[in-house]
């Protein structure tokens, strides 16, 4: 049974889904900043991404090095089946809580 995800983890997973094939560190941070209007530090972002990777919710691959990054490669992220299940479960939990509050 897949576990659920935390609030910031959920935001990251949703940003990755929205970015599709272009989900790497800078794009994810900018997507979150644009949507939520809050700045994200690289430390917080990458530790959360690493945690999600450890849990098996994310798969990664390295792209080709580019000159604008000092010759360093981009690390691309995509959701695994386990990650999608965990995200769906978390969103369903939130929906259930919302409905319960609206009813009461």
């Amino acid at each position, binding site marked *: 049974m897949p576990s659920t995800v935390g609030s910031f983890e959920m935001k990251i997973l949703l940003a990755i889904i929205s970015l599709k094939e272009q989900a*790497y*560190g*800078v794009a994810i*941070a900018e997507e979150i900043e644009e949507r939520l209007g809050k700045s994200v*530090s*690289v*430390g*917080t972002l*990458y*530790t959360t991404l*690493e*945690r999600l990777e450890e849990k098996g919710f994310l798969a990664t691959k*390295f792209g080709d*090095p*580019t*000159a*604008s*990054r*000092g*010759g*360093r*490669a*981009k*690390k691309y992220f995509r959701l695994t089946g386990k990650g999608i299940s965990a995200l769906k479960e978390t969103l369903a939990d939130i929906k259930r809580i919302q409905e319960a509050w609206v009813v009461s």
Partner: protein
Amino acid sequence: MKQLREKVLRRRFFLACLRHVLRSLAVLGTLSLCVLAFFKMFSIETELVKVVAAMAVLMASTLFHFVSKRPKDEAFLAYMRAVNSGVAKHPEKGPPMHAEKLIYLILPASDTTDAIIGDLEERYERAANRYGVKYANGWYWRQALGSVVPFLWNRVRKILTLTAVAKGAHTVWKWWM
């Protein structure tokens, strides 16, 4: 010219590495001498205590070596830049050198570290083009300082997990025996 520069940087980097290894060996030697003096002073003869002490000294030196794993000087940064991009950058044109050094020091050596530094550099360049170098330098410093706690906590979390696993294994071992 580029090749010559890279050669010089590589030589500087390896000299820095050599200095680092020698420093670690010096720590190992000093600790060993201290333990031997302690044994002599208190006339300790038990073999088990000696083995445990030797292991502790070895572990402490290894820890010292890995905690201060990367040579902490300009040669390292210059070498990393030269190897990754083929051309060493002028320090004034890139991100603040000390902030970049800080990131390299708190992160473990891995491909992810390079990706993180690359991400920072990409955003630094964009910020510099849009708002100017002064703003970009401030932004880079904020990112570096703001990342110290999460990255260090991540490392502590991993060590705590390993300790918990070791304790669990020890309990199982004791129960089994």
